[in-house]
Protein backbone atom coordinates (compact mmCIF):
# COMPACT_ATOMS: atom_id res chain seq x y z
CA UNK A 1 0.00 0.00 0.00
CA UNK A 2 0.98 3.61 -0.62
CA UNK A 3 1.48 5.99 2.27
CA UNK A 4 -1.16 8.26 0.71
CA UNK A 5 -3.83 5.73 1.65
CA UNK A 6 -3.22 6.62 5.30
CA UNK A 7 -4.90 10.02 4.71
CA UNK A 8 -8.30 8.40 4.43
CA UNK A 9 -7.80 5.01 6.11
CA UNK A 10 -9.44 4.67 9.52
CA UNK A 11 -10.00 2.05 12.19
CA UNK A 12 -13.01 -0.02 10.99
CA UNK A 13 -14.32 -0.16 14.56
CA UNK A 14 -14.35 3.41 15.81
CA UNK A 15 -13.23 5.34 12.66
CA UNK A 16 -10.29 6.96 14.40
CA UNK A 17 -6.94 7.53 12.70
CA UNK A 18 -4.33 4.83 12.34
CA UNK A 19 -0.65 5.06 13.10
CA UNK A 20 1.88 3.11 11.10
CA UNK A 21 4.39 1.01 13.09
CA UNK A 22 7.30 -1.22 12.07
CA UNK A 23 6.93 -0.24 8.43
CA UNK A 24 9.01 -2.02 5.79
CA UNK A 25 9.24 -0.23 2.49
CA UNK A 26 9.57 -1.72 -1.00
CA UNK A 27 12.32 -0.98 -3.49
CA UNK A 28 10.77 2.21 -4.85
CA UNK A 29 10.52 3.64 -1.39
CA UNK A 30 6.87 4.73 -1.40
CA UNK A 31 5.28 1.29 -1.16
CA UNK A 32 4.72 -0.06 2.35
CA UNK A 33 5.11 -3.84 2.05
CA UNK A 34 4.76 -4.77 5.71
CA UNK A 35 3.96 -3.17 9.05
CA UNK A 36 1.19 -2.64 11.52
CA UNK A 37 -1.57 -0.01 11.63
CA UNK A 38 -2.55 0.92 15.17
CA UNK A 39 -5.73 2.78 16.08
CA UNK A 40 -4.87 5.92 18.02
CA UNK A 41 -8.09 5.55 20.01
CA UNK A 42 -8.77 1.89 20.75
CA UNK A 43 -5.26 0.56 20.17
CA UNK A 44 -6.49 -2.23 17.88
CA UNK A 45 -3.72 -3.50 15.57
CA UNK A 46 -4.11 -4.23 11.85
CA UNK A 47 -1.35 -5.93 9.88
CA UNK A 48 -0.04 -5.10 6.44
CA UNK A 49 1.13 -8.25 4.64
CA UNK A 50 2.58 -8.37 1.13
CA UNK A 51 1.64 -4.73 0.82
CA UNK A 52 -2.04 -5.33 1.59
CA UNK A 53 -3.50 -3.99 4.84
CA UNK A 54 -6.03 -6.23 6.54
CA UNK A 55 -8.71 -4.03 8.09
CA UNK A 56 -11.25 -6.68 8.91
CA UNK A 57 -12.77 -6.12 12.35
CA UNK A 58 -10.90 -8.33 14.86
CA UNK A 59 -13.73 -10.87 15.25
CA UNK A 60 -13.86 -11.55 11.52
CA UNK A 61 -10.12 -11.57 11.15
CA UNK A 62 -9.63 -14.21 13.79
CA UNK A 63 -12.27 -16.59 12.47
CA UNK A 64 -9.67 -18.60 10.59
CA UNK A 65 -6.23 -18.26 12.14
CA UNK A 66 -3.57 -17.57 9.52
Amino acid sequence: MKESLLDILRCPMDKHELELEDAEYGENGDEIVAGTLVCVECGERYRIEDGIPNLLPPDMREETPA
Partner: protein
Amino acid sequence: MSVREEFDEWAANGKDRGMEERHWHTAKHALARIPLEPGETVLDLGCGSGYAGRALRETKGAGRVYGLDGAPEMAHNAAGYTDDPAVGYLVGDFDSLPFADDSIDHVWSMEAFYYAADPHHALEEIARVLRPGGTFYCAVNYYEENVHSHEWQEFISIEMTRWDRSQYREGFRNAGLSVGEQDTIPDREITIPSEEEFPTDDWDSREDMVERYREYGTLLTVGVAP
Protein backbone atom coordinates in the same frame (compact mmCIF):
# COMPACT_ATOMS: atom_id res chain seq x y z
CA MET B 1 -18.27 -20.88 6.03
CA SER B 2 -17.17 -17.26 6.26
CA VAL B 3 -16.85 -14.76 3.40
CA ARG B 4 -13.13 -15.19 3.82
CA GLU B 5 -13.12 -18.98 3.49
CA GLU B 6 -15.70 -19.12 0.69
CA PHE B 7 -14.12 -16.47 -1.51
CA ASP B 8 -10.49 -17.31 -0.75
CA GLU B 9 -11.33 -20.64 -2.33
CA TRP B 10 -12.92 -18.94 -5.35
CA ALA B 11 -9.79 -16.83 -5.74
CA ALA B 12 -7.53 -19.88 -5.49
CA ASN B 13 -9.57 -21.55 -8.23
CA GLY B 14 -9.29 -18.58 -10.57
CA LYS B 15 -12.97 -17.72 -10.33
CA ASP B 16 -12.02 -14.04 -9.96
CA ARG B 17 -11.02 -13.83 -13.64
CA GLY B 18 -14.02 -15.86 -14.74
CA MET B 19 -16.37 -13.43 -12.98
CA GLU B 20 -14.53 -10.46 -14.44
CA GLU B 21 -15.08 -11.79 -17.94
CA ARG B 22 -18.79 -12.44 -17.45
CA HIS B 23 -19.59 -9.38 -15.36
CA TRP B 24 -17.81 -7.05 -17.77
CA HIS B 25 -20.65 -7.49 -20.30
CA THR B 26 -22.96 -5.34 -18.20
CA ALA B 27 -20.55 -3.71 -15.72
CA LYS B 28 -18.88 -1.67 -18.46
CA HIS B 29 -22.18 0.03 -19.31
CA ALA B 30 -22.81 0.93 -15.69
CA LEU B 31 -19.23 2.13 -15.19
CA ALA B 32 -19.56 4.39 -18.23
CA ARG B 33 -22.42 6.24 -16.53
CA ILE B 34 -20.50 7.29 -13.41
CA PRO B 35 -20.12 11.09 -13.43
CA LEU B 36 -16.47 10.78 -12.41
CA GLU B 37 -14.17 13.78 -12.77
CA PRO B 38 -10.45 13.28 -13.37
CA GLY B 39 -8.57 12.98 -10.09
CA GLU B 40 -11.48 11.70 -8.05
CA THR B 41 -11.22 8.77 -5.63
CA VAL B 42 -13.12 5.52 -6.19
CA LEU B 43 -13.80 2.64 -3.81
CA ASP B 44 -14.75 -0.78 -5.25
CA LEU B 45 -16.59 -2.89 -2.67
CA GLY B 46 -16.08 -6.62 -3.11
CA CYS B 47 -13.62 -5.89 -5.88
CA GLY B 48 -12.80 -9.51 -6.84
CA SER B 49 -10.15 -9.28 -9.57
CA GLY B 50 -10.33 -5.49 -9.32
CA TYR B 51 -11.13 -4.90 -12.99
CA ALA B 52 -13.71 -2.16 -12.36
CA GLY B 53 -11.38 0.22 -10.58
CA ARG B 54 -8.65 -0.31 -13.15
CA ALA B 55 -11.12 0.48 -15.94
CA LEU B 56 -12.10 3.74 -14.24
CA ARG B 57 -8.44 4.74 -14.02
CA GLU B 58 -7.99 4.12 -17.72
CA THR B 59 -11.23 5.48 -19.14
CA LYS B 60 -12.04 8.39 -16.83
CA GLY B 61 -8.75 9.32 -15.18
CA ALA B 62 -9.80 8.42 -11.65
CA GLY B 63 -7.14 9.76 -9.29
CA ARG B 64 -6.98 6.99 -6.72
CA VAL B 65 -8.77 3.68 -6.83
CA TYR B 66 -9.15 1.33 -3.87
CA GLY B 67 -10.50 -2.19 -4.07
CA LEU B 68 -11.79 -3.65 -0.82
CA ASP B 69 -12.52 -7.35 -0.46
CA GLY B 70 -13.29 -9.57 2.50
CA ALA B 71 -11.21 -12.41 1.07
CA PRO B 72 -7.43 -11.84 1.36
CA GLU B 73 -6.76 -14.11 -1.63
CA MET B 74 -9.03 -11.95 -3.81
CA ALA B 75 -7.16 -8.80 -2.78
CA HIS B 76 -3.82 -10.48 -3.40
CA ASN B 77 -4.85 -11.70 -6.83
CA ALA B 78 -6.17 -8.22 -7.71
CA ALA B 79 -2.90 -6.60 -6.63
CA GLY B 80 -1.03 -9.01 -8.90
CA TYR B 81 -2.92 -7.84 -11.99
CA THR B 82 -1.63 -4.25 -12.00
CA ASP B 83 1.46 -2.13 -11.47
CA ASP B 84 -0.48 1.13 -11.40
CA PRO B 85 0.73 3.05 -8.33
CA ALA B 86 -2.63 4.86 -8.04
CA VAL B 87 -4.47 1.58 -7.48
CA GLY B 88 -4.52 -0.11 -4.07
CA TYR B 89 -6.24 -3.12 -2.54
CA LEU B 90 -7.20 -3.87 1.01
CA VAL B 91 -8.97 -6.51 3.04
CA GLY B 92 -12.05 -5.35 4.90
CA ASP B 93 -15.76 -5.85 5.43
CA PHE B 94 -18.75 -3.95 3.96
CA ASP B 95 -20.25 -3.50 7.39
CA SER B 96 -17.23 -1.74 8.94
CA LEU B 97 -15.63 0.37 6.26
CA PRO B 98 -12.10 1.46 7.21
CA PHE B 99 -12.41 4.93 5.68
CA ALA B 100 -12.86 8.45 6.97
CA ASP B 101 -16.19 10.27 6.61
CA ASP B 102 -16.62 12.07 3.24
CA SER B 103 -13.37 10.61 1.92
CA ILE B 104 -14.63 8.88 -1.25
CA ASP B 105 -16.10 10.43 -4.41
CA HIS B 106 -17.68 7.32 -5.91
CA VAL B 107 -18.37 3.84 -4.56
CA TRP B 108 -18.79 0.96 -7.00
CA SER B 109 -19.97 -2.55 -6.25
CA MET B 110 -20.74 -5.37 -8.71
CA GLU B 111 -22.34 -8.63 -7.65
CA ALA B 112 -21.18 -8.23 -4.08
CA PHE B 113 -23.48 -5.94 -2.08
CA TYR B 114 -25.98 -8.69 -1.24
CA TYR B 115 -23.34 -10.62 0.71
CA ALA B 116 -23.25 -7.89 3.37
CA ALA B 117 -24.23 -9.42 6.71
CA ASP B 118 -26.29 -6.30 7.46
CA PRO B 119 -27.10 -4.55 4.16
CA HIS B 120 -28.83 -1.62 5.87
CA HIS B 121 -25.78 -0.94 7.94
CA ALA B 122 -23.50 -1.38 4.93
CA LEU B 123 -25.54 1.34 3.15
CA GLU B 124 -25.10 3.64 6.14
CA GLU B 125 -21.37 3.02 6.01
CA ILE B 126 -21.34 3.84 2.30
CA ALA B 127 -23.33 7.03 2.89
CA ARG B 128 -20.87 7.95 5.63
CA VAL B 129 -17.69 7.59 3.55
CA LEU B 130 -19.13 9.35 0.48
CA ARG B 131 -18.62 13.09 0.15
CA PRO B 132 -21.75 15.17 -0.40
CA GLY B 133 -22.85 14.63 -4.01
CA GLY B 134 -20.80 11.43 -4.31
CA THR B 135 -22.42 8.40 -5.93
CA PHE B 136 -22.90 4.72 -5.06
CA TYR B 137 -23.23 2.51 -8.13
CA CYS B 138 -24.68 -0.78 -6.94
CA ALA B 139 -24.97 -3.49 -9.59
CA VAL B 140 -26.44 -6.92 -8.89
CA ASN B 141 -27.55 -9.92 -10.95
CA TYR B 142 -29.09 -11.59 -7.90
CA TYR B 143 -32.38 -9.82 -7.19
CA GLU B 144 -36.01 -10.69 -6.68
CA GLU B 145 -37.36 -9.95 -10.16
CA ASN B 146 -34.61 -12.08 -11.72
CA VAL B 147 -36.31 -15.38 -10.92
CA HIS B 148 -33.49 -17.30 -12.57
CA SER B 149 -31.07 -16.12 -9.90
CA HIS B 150 -33.08 -17.38 -6.93
CA GLU B 151 -31.44 -20.80 -6.84
CA TRP B 152 -27.95 -19.32 -6.51
CA GLN B 153 -28.33 -19.29 -2.74
CA GLU B 154 -28.25 -23.09 -2.78
CA PHE B 155 -24.68 -23.10 -4.02
CA ILE B 156 -23.14 -20.79 -1.48
CA SER B 157 -22.90 -20.87 2.30
CA ILE B 158 -23.05 -17.07 2.81
CA GLU B 159 -26.54 -15.74 3.36
CA MET B 160 -27.59 -13.58 0.41
CA THR B 161 -30.00 -10.65 0.57
CA ARG B 162 -32.58 -10.86 -2.23
CA TRP B 163 -34.18 -7.44 -2.50
CA ASP B 164 -36.52 -6.42 -5.28
CA ARG B 165 -36.17 -3.18 -7.19
CA SER B 166 -38.27 -1.16 -4.78
CA GLN B 167 -36.48 -2.58 -1.74
CA TYR B 168 -33.20 -1.34 -3.18
CA ARG B 169 -34.65 2.15 -3.61
CA GLU B 170 -36.14 2.10 -0.14
CA GLY B 171 -32.98 0.71 1.45
CA PHE B 172 -30.90 3.46 -0.14
CA ARG B 173 -33.29 6.16 1.03
CA ASN B 174 -33.45 4.80 4.57
CA ALA B 175 -29.68 5.07 4.73
CA GLY B 176 -29.87 8.70 3.64
CA LEU B 177 -28.94 8.26 -0.02
CA SER B 178 -31.12 9.78 -2.73
CA VAL B 179 -31.82 7.48 -5.65
CA GLY B 180 -30.53 8.95 -8.93
CA GLU B 181 -31.55 6.10 -11.21
CA GLN B 182 -32.54 2.49 -11.35
CA ASP B 183 -32.17 0.38 -14.44
CA THR B 184 -31.69 -3.12 -15.71
CA ILE B 185 -28.80 -3.48 -18.11
CA PRO B 186 -29.15 -6.36 -20.56
CA ASP B 187 -26.22 -8.67 -21.24
CA ARG B 188 -26.17 -8.59 -25.04
CA GLU B 189 -22.83 -10.37 -25.31
CA ILE B 190 -23.22 -13.75 -23.72
CA THR B 191 -23.57 -16.47 -26.32
CA ILE B 192 -27.00 -18.05 -26.25
CA PRO B 193 -26.97 -21.43 -28.04
CA SER B 194 -29.55 -22.20 -30.70
CA GLU B 195 -32.89 -23.78 -29.82
CA GLU B 196 -31.89 -27.39 -30.50
CA GLU B 197 -29.08 -27.31 -27.93
CA PHE B 198 -31.52 -26.91 -25.05
CA PRO B 199 -31.82 -28.17 -22.38
CA THR B 200 -28.18 -27.41 -21.51
CA ASP B 201 -26.43 -28.18 -18.22
CA ASP B 202 -27.56 -24.83 -16.85
CA TRP B 203 -30.74 -24.00 -18.72
CA ASP B 204 -33.97 -25.88 -19.28
CA SER B 205 -35.11 -23.66 -22.12
CA ARG B 206 -33.67 -21.06 -24.44
CA GLU B 207 -36.50 -18.75 -23.44
CA ASP B 208 -35.33 -18.78 -19.82
CA MET B 209 -31.76 -18.07 -20.78
CA VAL B 210 -32.81 -15.17 -23.01
CA GLU B 211 -34.95 -13.75 -20.22
CA ARG B 212 -32.15 -14.08 -17.66
CA TYR B 213 -29.53 -12.30 -19.74
CA ARG B 214 -31.20 -10.11 -22.33
CA GLU B 215 -34.07 -8.96 -20.15
CA TYR B 216 -33.19 -9.13 -16.45
CA GLY B 217 -29.45 -8.66 -16.96
CA THR B 218 -27.94 -6.55 -14.18
CA LEU B 219 -29.96 -4.37 -11.82
CA LEU B 220 -28.27 -1.04 -11.28
CA THR B 221 -29.34 1.29 -8.47
CA VAL B 222 -27.51 4.60 -8.13
CA GLY B 223 -27.43 6.39 -4.79
CA VAL B 224 -26.34 10.00 -4.34
CA ALA B 225 -25.07 11.30 -1.00
CA PRO B 226 -26.85 14.45 0.24
